[in-house]
């Protein structure tokens, strides 16, 4: 059953007039409802409809002209030359899929299926604006993430932030109540995970990955 898009639009509680419009594509009703609720909580985003398969998605995309397609699983991506999106001038696409990136050029963002709601919302905003984004490596001890091998632990993020303040190992050690030896161990791990060759480079890379707050 395809919902009437006009009715859908009217039913939403006072969305912003210039809200980013989104079409959800997901196989199961539970997924569709979940994603819809997640996006509806954000006043800057308006869900204009949802589809269960690529054919329906293509049909609705043509009728409703959404700015962004949020697709749960690469199998559901509408394909072919007439799918009407994927280019810079077309519709923005955010894909939720375990198998990331390379195979899906032209997508504005590929997030893991367990992405946090704020990541999905951020990606939808970015796609509506025509931007291409990738998820940040996780810090803060969250073990989830697309690249777990490069995710810094909570302690490492703490040490990195202190390095950014220019604190010497001795001070970092006494403030955290650990030995200088342990600090050096953390720093070696931070450098290796970030692919940095010096403390300075680690701080620069940490900033660019959003691990060090400004």
């Amino acid at each position, binding site marked *: 059953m395809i919902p009437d898009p006009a009715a859908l639009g009217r039913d939403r509680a006072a969305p912003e007039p*210039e*809200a*980013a419009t989104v079409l959800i594509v997901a196989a199961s009703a539970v997924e569709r409802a979940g994603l819809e609720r997640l996006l509806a909580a954000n006043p*800057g985003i308006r869900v204009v409809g949802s589809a269960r398969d690529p054919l329906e998605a293509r049909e609705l995309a043509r009728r409703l002209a959404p*700015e962004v397609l949020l697709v749960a699983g690469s199998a559901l991506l509408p394909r072919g030359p007439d799918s009407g999106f994927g280019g*810079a001038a077309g519709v923005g696409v955010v894909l939720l899929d375990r198998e990331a990136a390379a195979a899906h050029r032209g997508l504005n963002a590929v997030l893991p299926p367990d992405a946090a709601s*704020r*990541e999905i*919302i*951020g*990606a*939808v*905003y*970015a796609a*509506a*604006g*025509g*931007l*291409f*984004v990738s998820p*940040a490596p996780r810090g803060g001890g969250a073990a989830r993430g697309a690249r777990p091998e490069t995710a810094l632990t909570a302690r490492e993020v*703490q040490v990195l*932030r*202190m390095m*950014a*303040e*220019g*604190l010497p190992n001795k*001070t*970092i050690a006494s*403030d955290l109540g650990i030995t200088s030896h342990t600090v050096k161990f953390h720093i070696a791990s931070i450098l290796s995970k970030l692919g940095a060759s*010096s403390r*300075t480079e680690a*701080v*620069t890379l940490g*900033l*660019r*990955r*959003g*691990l*060090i*707050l*400004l």
Partner: protein
Amino acid sequence: MKSQLQGGGAFAALSREITEAVERTDPWIVSIDARGGFPTSGVVWSEGIVVAANHTLVREGDLTVRFPDGARTSVGVAGRDPGSDLAVLKLDTGKRPTAPVDAAAEPAAGELVLAVGRNSEHGLRASLGVIGGVGGQWQTARGASIDRYILLDLSTFPGFSGGPLVDAEARVLGINTTGLSRHSGVAIPVSTVERVVKELSERGHVRRGYLGVGLYPLALPAHLRASLKIEGDGGLMIIGVEEGGPAARGGILLGDVIVALDGKPIEDHEALQSRLGTESVGKRLAITVLRGDRLVQASVEIGERPARGQ
């Protein structure tokens, strides 16, 4: 021309002038023992204030300051700024002369300069060279904004950091350090030293502005820059917001892309950091963000960057 007519010619005259310039710095350069037997240099900047290079002061307390007249004082570090590699000691400097600083100096590449330091027993050390290059405002790796880039082309003898860079008239152009660049010595210009010294003597640390956001740099598509009249090529996407932080209170959301601060383009982290100096703390600034496909203005009261190490 006149000196050439006197005994010794131009070379001897130049030599005498250099020696005199070094001697004139003698009264206000101190030696500081803060790292067990390897003394470093400091400058009597104003009454009661000695400026040194932060990285050379390994000990926090029980530092011995030796004055040129032989007097010694034991002090602690009153304030440090790892960002600019400056530190301040507060002590009784008595009626001793303070360094003649030239805040209006316009150092130029190729200008003859002297780096002077004091090594406890052996008195002054001097190195003659030129200013290797001068540039505009720059950002150190630790986030401090330095008003002018002064590259040194002279030998960086041990204990050199914390000593002054002086011109031919023995006026201070800056404080030397090897702690900010791995490749060469630089001088921190007088205007930056004065700003940092004021903060350090009043608070013990240098305040920095803070938004409480994690940012990811990205390139903005040309069509968006054109349609929204965005000046810069890039922006910073918010990928983390500290709850209750300055940006969150100002209505900044995850996914927003910062493109300008107070109307001036922000294209990368360096640009943002340079705008979040001490003077920004407590000010309300207009931040322009790209939200979806339109620009939104947020008004954010800049906070103070928390010092996790304190």
